């Protein structure tokens, strides 16, 4: 047995060039598979933690998924708004610790505009309960102040002090611009990897101000209020789109949900974001499944290459097998010899693959976090991640071992047919 390993190593070394490339292809397949799986988990985590620390998302009664789509992802529009007075009533409810109003509808060059309060910057949490951080500037204070998400600033190349014009609705059509009342960038947020990065934040008062001289979605002809006069008007909103609520005690969430649903004067609902985000992932997560499938295909191709390389060498090795038989090697020892070769190439490929991925993650993680705000966890070798990692590696190893048996079985068969005189 021990000498079989020596033989297997020597024979592998003798054919090191084809085997090296086979090993590399297995290594790449391994790191791809692990990388995709890692990324899948991280993206999923990132997605389901687009909002964290928020106990309930409140809006007009409709489908919970739809509410999440516009309140969290700023996709689509609310069929119906909720009254500001209802929002205020909820905000002062004794069980509520904090609340953030959300008012959507306008856009800037394709990026959604969100009207909200300064509470947004103090109470909003994402990911692992991380607060928003300012990369530059300060949160908004004045009516025409705007705070940009990281991606908005990066894509449009905006700096502090930039003058921006908002567009009515999300279509971005010419002529529907709020050109008379430009906003000024006072702050830029650090990347979060959530829809916050794609959002232009303004005050509720600002949102109200640009619509003062509008009616039914269009400017009132011949009627215009210049920006310096808007402060003379009441800028309290009549309605908002949705409201995020944090409770003093998480245990109150179901009672609060009932209280919102039973509020007699308006048809509202409170949705727990975690549950609904998981439902939403079932839909958008399909692509990740396909990616994982493709990665498995790549792994199988790599192992197929391994079998091909070893099988191709086998016919040239019939003499060698006969020699080994003549000095007393048993057919099953020859099987083992060939299988060992494939097995060690697989193990080598896995080791190199894991090292490769670790190196890539090590160097890429800060960059990805800075640009996309997705926190990659690296190859964690403890806890739940380690089990799923080990499971995946186990599957690759198993597939490699099974693949390695193929040339081994052929060697076994050949050695029985050939005996001491190979027929080649």
């Amino acid at each position: 047995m021990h000498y079989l390993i020596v033989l297997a190593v020597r024979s592998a070394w003798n054919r090191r060039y084809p085997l090296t490339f086979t090993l590399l292809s297995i290594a790449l397949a391994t790191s791809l598979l692990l990388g995709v799986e890692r990324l899948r988990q991280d993206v999923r985590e990132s997605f389901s933690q687009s909002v964290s620390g928020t106990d309930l998302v409140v809006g007009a009664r409709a489908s919970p998924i739809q509410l999440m789509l516009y309140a969290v992802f700023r996709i689509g529009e609310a069929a119906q708004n909720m009254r500001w007075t209802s929002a205020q009533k909820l905000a002062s409810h004794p069980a509520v610790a904090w609340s953030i109003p959300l008012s959507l509808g306008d856009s800037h060059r394709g990026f959604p505009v969100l009207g909200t309060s300064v509470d947004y910057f103090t109470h909003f949490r994402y990911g692992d309960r991380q607060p928003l951080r300012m990369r530059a500037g300060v949160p908004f204070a004045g009516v025409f102040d705007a705070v940009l998400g990281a991606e908005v600033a990066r894509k449009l190349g905006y700096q502090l002090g930039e003058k921006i014009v908002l567009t009515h609705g999300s279509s971005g059509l010419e002529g529907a611009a709020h050109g008379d009342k430009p906003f000024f960038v006072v702050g830029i947020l650090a990347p979060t990897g959530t829809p916050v990065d794609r959002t232009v934040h303004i005050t509720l008062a600002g949102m109200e101000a640009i619509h003062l001289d509008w009616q039914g979605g269009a400017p009132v002809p011949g009627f215009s209020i210049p920006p310096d006069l808007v402060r003379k008007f009441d800028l309290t909103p009549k309605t908002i789109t949705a409201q995020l609520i944090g409770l003093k005690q998480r245990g109150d969430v179901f009672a609060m949900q009932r209280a919102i649903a039973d509020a007699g004067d308006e048809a509202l609902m409170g949705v727990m974001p975690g549950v609904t985000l998981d439902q939403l992932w079932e839909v958008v997560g399909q692509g990740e499944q396909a990616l994982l499938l493709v990665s498995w295909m790549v792994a199988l191709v790599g192992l197929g290459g391994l079998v091909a390389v070893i099988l191709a060498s086998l016919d040239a090795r019939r003499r060698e097998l006969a020699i080994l038989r003549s000095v007393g090697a048993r057919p099953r020892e020859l099987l083992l010899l060939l299988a060992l070769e494939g097995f060690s190439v697989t193990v080598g490929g896995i080791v190199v693959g894991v090292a490769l991925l670790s190196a890539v993650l090590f160097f890429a993680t800060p960059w990805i976090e800075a640009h996309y705000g997705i926190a990659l966890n690296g190859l964690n070798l403890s806890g739940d991640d380690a089990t799923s990692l080990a499971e995946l590696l186990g599957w690759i190893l198993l597939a490699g071992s099974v693949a390695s048996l193929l040339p081994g079985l052929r060697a076994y068969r050949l050695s029985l047919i050939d005996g001491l005189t190979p027929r080649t």
Partner: protein
Amino acid sequence: MKSETVVAITDLVFRWPRQSAVCLDLPELRLRRGEHAFLHGPSGCGKSTLLSLIGGVLVPGSGSIDLLGEDLGRLRSTQRDRLRADHIGFVFQQFNLVPYLPVIDNVLLPCRFSARRREQAQAGGASLRGEAERLLSHLDLARDLWLRPATDLSVGQQQRVAAARALIGHPELLIADEPTSALDAERQEAFLDLLLREANAAGSTVLFVSHDRRLASHFVRDLALPALNRASHGETACTI
């Protein structure tokens, strides 16, 4: 007590699978200890098949082959593999060496698979390596070739390495299957002399197979397989 008969074949009948004709039908063949026998016959007459049977790679359909008193047909395949490793050295026609091993490791190969050969190689108090080197120098292989890969050697050199491998650990039986047919006439003589001299020194019985009758003069016993084989009329029955 060691048996005086190394190989004893009695009423052997062998037929290849999926062939109707009998390949070998040998009433009797005995090889005594230390005997040098020359076995000849045209290609396809069953020489290689007979060697595989004696080597325990094939088993007879009926009759018996005793190797050192053990009936091969009654042994399990792993026991036959062990018996072959312990007691038989092989030299083939050509491509005798494992290409990725150096010369000296090719010589030592039988000692890796057989504890008995290993012990006997060290019996004179020499190290395994020392014994391999002794055989290589007796077979006229220059010292600078010993650590070279087997593939660097000429055919003649390779055959001498194969002879050293077959003889290491003093196997009772040396089977040589056309070992000289890849060599030119001059080297054939020299190789044969070396092989037989070292086999004598090791006390091995030699079964030398060739279709070339000119070599028979080196041997005490000259066996014609077609004359021994009652099934020799079926010429194709031994090739598959």
